[in-house]
C-alpha cells in the first residue's frame, strides 16, 4: 500500500478514462475527445477525486448524467461509468437504439451479472450496434474516497445501509441479507482496488461479524479461481514494498455510541458537525446584511456559497486535524504572509515605473525584467493563495459563530470530562437550565453521553429529574429509549467501553488575545488544549495491530481468506505486529474517529491506518436515527 487509496482510485479512474489503457505521459500524443456519462453513484465517486479541469485535460468534453436528456453527438466515443442496475441497463439499451454516439465503452462500477450482460447484448443486436460497443469492463470502484486514507460506502443508498436500517428491531432476514451484500460488495471492490488480501478480525455477535463472514467467503472464492483471480501476483507486487498483509478490523457502531454524539474541537470534525460538509464540499448560508423591506412581501434571500476542500489545498491538509484556535491563528498568519507578498509585487511595480525613465539603466532593466517576469508568473499563485485564505476565513468565521452561539467549548470540555471519568465541576442540571448554552440538540447529546458513559445507570429519581428538565426545554426523549435498550444489551455482552484518560486544560484567554491580535477574537470562548486520548476504536486497533493480549480483543474472530480451509478458530497464526491496518465501522462513522486514528498513526512511525465506514454522519443526523429507533 505504498500509494494511498485516493491515488489508487484516481489512477484507476484515469485509466478508465483513457479507454482502459495505461495512461501515456507523452503530451505529444494526438488528443482524443470523449464524452463521459455517469449515474449518481458514479458522480459521487468522481466528484471528490477529479475536478472538471482534470477531466478536460484527459479529453472529456462533456460530462452528463445517464438519466438526463442527451443529444445526438455522432462522432465521439462515449465512456459510461454506471452501476449495473436495471434502470441504468434500460437506459443504456435505449441509447444504443437511438445511436447517440459513435462508440460505447461501458464501465460498470461493480461487477455486472451475466443476465444483464445478455440484456445489453440483445439490445445491441436489435440496434445493429454490436460493433459500436467497443469495450465492457467491470471497474470494481464501488466506494467513495474522501481523503488519502478515508473512504465511505455509497452515498445514494444511505438510507438502506444506515445505522437505523441495520439496527431496527423489526428487520427482516432478507433485508439484512441485502444490506450485508451491499456492504460486502463495496468492501470487495475496495480490496480489489487496493490490491491486497487482508487478514480479517472482527468482534462476535453483531453485524460486523456477518459482514466478515461474507467478505471472507467472497475473497476466498475469488482467490480459489486461479484463472480469474483479481489478486494475481502482479497486482500484489506492483507498488507494494511490504510483504506483509494488512489487517482489516471490522468494528460495529454499537461498540461505541458516545463518539458520534460527541462535541468536537478539531477543524474538519467541527465543520462536519456544525456546517454542511458533504463529499468534501462545504455549503455556507450567508444572509445578506441588508435590512428587510418594510413593505414586507419578500423575505431576505439567502445566498448559499459552496467551497471545495481539496487535496491541493495545503493549508487544509495541514490543519484539518488541528484544534480550532490553532486554525484561527494559522489563517491569520497566512493572511499576513500573503499581504507581505502582495506588497512586494506592488513595490516592484513602482520601482519599474521609476526605472523606466532612467537612461543608463539597460542592465538594471534586464534584471528588473527578470524580477517582473517572476512576479508576473507568481501572480496566479498569489491569487490562488488569496482565494484559499478567503475560503478558510469564511469557513472558520462561520464555525466560530456557531461555537459562540451555542457555547460548544463548554460542551466539549464537559463531555471530555465525562468520557474520562474525571470530576465534574458543574452538574448536568445547571447546564440544562442555562438558556444560552446551546440548542436543545446539544443538551440532548450531552445527556446521552452522560447516560452512556456512566458506570452505573443514574438512580430513578435523578433520571426523572433529568427527564423533566429536558422536556421542559423541549427535547425529544425518544433517543433515550433506544439508548436504554442498547445499554442493557451491551451490558450483557461485555463491559462498557472505556474511553481512556484525557485531560483538558483551558488556557488563559487574555494571553492568547494579546499575542496574536487576530481578527478571530474568541471572546468568552475558552481556548482548550487537547491532550491525546484514545477512543475505543483506536484502542482496539492498537491491541490488534500490536498483538497485545487484552480481554476485549482476545475474543475476536480471525479470518484469513488465503488459507485453504476456513478455520473457525480465533487463534491468529501470525505473531508479528502489523504495519498496515484498515478499520471499517459497520453502521456509520465520523471524522472524530478518523482524526483519532490519524493521530494514532502519526504517533507510531511506519504504521499506516485507513479508515472506512458504511456511512458518514454527524451528530444531528445520528440523533435523528436514534430517535427513529427509539420510537419503535
Amino acid at each position, binding site marked *: 500500500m505504498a500509494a494511498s487509496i485516493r491515488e489508487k482510485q484516481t489512477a*484507476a479512474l484515469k485509466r*478508465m478514462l483513457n479507454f*482502459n489503457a*495505461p495512461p501515456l505521459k507523452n503530451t505529444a500524443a*494526438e*488528443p482524443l*475527445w470523449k464524452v463521459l456519462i455517469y449515474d449518481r453513484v458514479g*458522480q459521487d465517486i468522481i*466528484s471528490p477525486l477529479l*475536478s*472538471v*479541469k482534470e*477531466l*478536460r485535460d484527459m*479529453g472529456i*468534453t*462533456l460530462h452528463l448524467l445517464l438519466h438526463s436528456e*442527451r*443529444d*445526438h*453527438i*455522432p*462522432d465521439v466515443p462515449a465512456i459510461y461509468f454506471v452501476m449495473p442496475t436495471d434502470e441504468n441497463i434500460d437506459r443504456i439499451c435505449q441509447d444504443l437504439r437511438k445511436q447517440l454516439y459513435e462508440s460505447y465503452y461501458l*464501465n460498470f462500477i461493480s*461487477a*455486472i451479472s*451475466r443476465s*444483464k*450482460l*445478455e440484456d*445489453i*447484448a440483445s439490445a*445491441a*443486436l436489435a440496434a*445493429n*450496434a*454490436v460493433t459500436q460497443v467497443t*469495450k*465492457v*469492463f*467491470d471497474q*470494481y470502484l464501488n466506494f467513495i474516497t474522501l481523503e488519502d486514507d478515508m473512504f465511505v460506502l455509497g452515498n445514494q443508498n444511505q438510507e438502506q445501509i444506515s445505522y437505523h436500517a441495520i439496527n431496527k428491531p423489526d428487520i427482516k432476514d432478507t433485508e439484512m441479507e441485502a444490506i450485508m451484500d451491499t456492504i460486502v460488495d463495496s468492501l470487495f471492490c475496495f480490496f480489489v*482496488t487496493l*490490491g491486497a488480501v487482508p487478514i480479517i478480525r472482527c468482534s462476535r455477535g453483531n453485524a460486523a461479524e456477518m459482514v466478515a463472514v461474507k467478505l471472507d467467503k*467472497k475473497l476466498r*472464492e*475469488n482467490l*480459489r*479461481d486461479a*484463472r*480469474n483471480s483479481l489478486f*494475481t501476483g*502482479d*497486482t500484489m507486487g*506492483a*507498488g507494494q514494498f511490504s510483504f506483509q498483509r494488512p489487517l482489516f478490523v471490522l468494528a460495529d457502531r454499537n461498540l461505541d455510541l458516545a463518539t458520534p454524539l460527541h462535541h468536537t474541537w478539531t477543524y474538519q470534525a467541527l465543520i462536519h458537525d456544525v456546517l454542511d460538509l458533504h*463529499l468534501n464540499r462545504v455549503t455556507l448560508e450567508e444572509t445578506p446584511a441588508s435590512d428587510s423591506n418594510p413593505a414586507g*412581501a419578500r423575505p431576505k434571500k439567502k445566498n*448559499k456559497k*459552496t467551497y471545495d476542500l481539496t487535496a491541493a489545498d495545503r493549508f487544509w491538509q495541514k490543519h484539518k486535524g488541528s484544534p480550532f484556535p490553532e486554525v484561527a491563528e494559522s489563517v491569520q498568519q497566512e493572511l499576513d504572509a500573503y499581504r507581505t507578498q502582495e506588497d512586494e509585487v506592488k513595490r516592484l511595480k513602482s520601482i519599474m515605473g521609476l526605472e523606466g525613465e532612467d537612461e543608463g539603466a539597460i542592465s538594471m532593466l534586464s534584471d528588473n525584467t527578470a524580477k517582473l517576469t517572476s512576479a508576473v508568473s507568481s501572480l496566479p499563485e498569489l491569487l490562488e493563495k488569496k482565494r484559499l485564505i478567503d475560503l478558510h476565513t469564511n469557513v472558520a468565521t462561520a464555525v466560530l459563530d456557531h461555537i459562540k452561539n451555542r457555547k460548544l467549548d463548554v460542551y466539549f470540555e464537559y463531555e471530555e470530562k465525562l468520557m474520562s471519568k474525571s470530576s465534574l465541576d458543574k452538574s448536568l442540571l445547571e447546564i440544562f437550565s442555562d438558556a444560552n448554552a446551546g440548542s436543545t440538540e446539544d443538551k440532548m447529546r450531552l445527556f446521552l453521553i452522560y447516560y452512556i458513559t456512566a458506570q452505573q445507570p443514574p438512580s430513578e429519581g435523578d433520571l426523572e429529574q433529568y427527564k423533566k428538565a429536558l422536556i421542559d426545554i423541549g427535547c425529544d426523549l425518544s433517543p433515550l429509549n433506544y439508548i436504554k435498550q442498547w445499554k442493557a444489551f451491551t451490558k450483557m455482552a461485555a463491559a462498557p467501553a472505556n474511553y481512556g484518560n484525557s485531560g483538558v486544560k483551558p488556557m488563559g484567554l487574555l494571553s492568547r488575545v494579546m499575542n496574536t491580535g487576530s481578527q478571530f477574537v474568541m471572546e468568552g470562548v475558552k481556548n482548550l488544549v487537547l491532550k491525546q486520548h484514545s477512543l475505543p476504536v483506536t484502542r482496539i486497533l492498537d491491541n490488534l495491530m500490536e498483538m497485545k493480549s487484552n480481554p476485549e480483543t482476545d475474543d475476536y474472530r480471525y479470518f484469513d481468506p488465503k488459507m485453504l480451509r476456513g478455520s473457525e478458530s480465533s487463534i491468529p497464526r501470525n505473531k508479528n505486529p502489523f504495519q498496515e491496518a484498515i478499520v471499517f465501522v459497520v453502521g456509520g462513522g465520523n471524522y472524530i474517529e478518523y482524526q483519532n486514528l490519524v493521530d494514532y498513526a502519526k504517533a507510531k512511525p511506519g504504521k499506516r491506518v485507513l479508515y472506512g465506514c458504511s456511512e458518514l454522519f454527524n451528530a444531528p443526523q445520528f440523533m435523528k436515527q436514534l430517535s427513529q429507533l427509539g420510537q419503535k
Partner: protein
Amino acid sequence: MNARRRHGTKNNEEGVYTGPSQTQSQVLQPLDAPLAIPAPFAAPVDSSSSMSCRDRTSEFQSVCKSLLSRQNGAQTTKPVNSAVRQRSDFTLAAKRIGRDLANTFAKLEKLTILAKRKSLFDDKAVEIDELTYIVKQDINSLNKQIAQLQELVRSRNGQNSRHLQTHSNTVVVSLQSKLASISSDFKSVLEVRTENLRLQRTRQEHFSQSPASASSFQDRSFSNSVLLQDNSNKSDISIDMDLRSSQQMQVLNETESFIQDRANTMQNIESTIVELGSIFQQLAHMVKEQEETVHRIDANVQDTELNVELAHSEIVKYFQSVTNNRWLLIKIFLILIVFFFIFVVFLA
C-alpha cells in the same frame, strides 16, 4: 429465461464469473473449475497488467454471437449498419489540428535538445535557426487554423444541439490551451537559446582573443555594428569612421561578420518573442471568452436546483398575493357591473 438456465451457469448472483463459459459447460460440468482446460471463450484474465478491473468484452461478444446464431434461425438478418461513420467536417478539422499540434510538439522537443547544448564548437546554429523558423511558422498556421475552427463552430451555433455545441466549444478551447502551452515552451526554449548564445560569445571572446586587443576589438566592433545598424541616420559618421580606420576594417571584417551573425540571430529571436507575445494575447483573449471554471461536476446540478427552487417560491408568492388580494377581485367585479349596466341601459 430458459435459455440461460439450460446451460446452468456457474455464476453466483454478483456476476463474478467463476466457471468456464456456457458453451462448454455441458461437457465440463463434472470436472472441476481449476483444471487448466482452455475454453475458447474463457473469461479473460488480465495477467499481464496490474489493472484492478476485469475485461468482459470477449464475454459480451460471445453472448452476442450466441444470440445472433439463435436469431438467425428465426428471422432474416437485418442489414448491418455500415461502419462508415460519417464524421462531420468539424471532427475532421479538429483531428487534423490535433495531429499538427502533436507534430509541432515533437519538433519543439528536438529544438529543446539542440538549444540546450552548451558546447563551444559544435554549435548547430543553422539547424537551430531552421527549426526555429519552422516551428514559428507552424505555430502561426495552427493559430490560424484554430481561429477558423472557432469560426466554423460559431457559425454552426444555431443548428447544433446544445450538447454538440458544448462539445465543439470545449474541443476548440482545449486545442487553444495546447497551443498556448506549446507557445510558452517555445518561448522558454528561445530564451534558453539567447542565454546560451550570450554565454558562448563571452566565452569565445575570452578564449580566442588576447585581452588587450580583445577590448579594443570589442569596442570597435561594438561601435561598428551599432553604427552599421543605424547607417541610414549616421551615414556621415560612419564614413568618417571608415576613413579613419580603413586599415583595420579588413581585419575587423571577419570578426564583424561573425558578430553580425550573432546580432542577427538575437534580433530574430527577439522579434519571434514579440510575435509570440501577440499570439499569447490572442489566445488569452479566446480562452477567457470560454470562461473555464474549476467547478466540480455536481456543481451545476445544485445550482440549477437552487435556481428552480427560488423561481418556484417567487411564483408561489406572486400567486398567493394575487389570489389573496380581495381588492383586486372587488375592482374587477365593479368594472364588470359597470359595463353591464352601460350595455343594458344604453342598448335596451
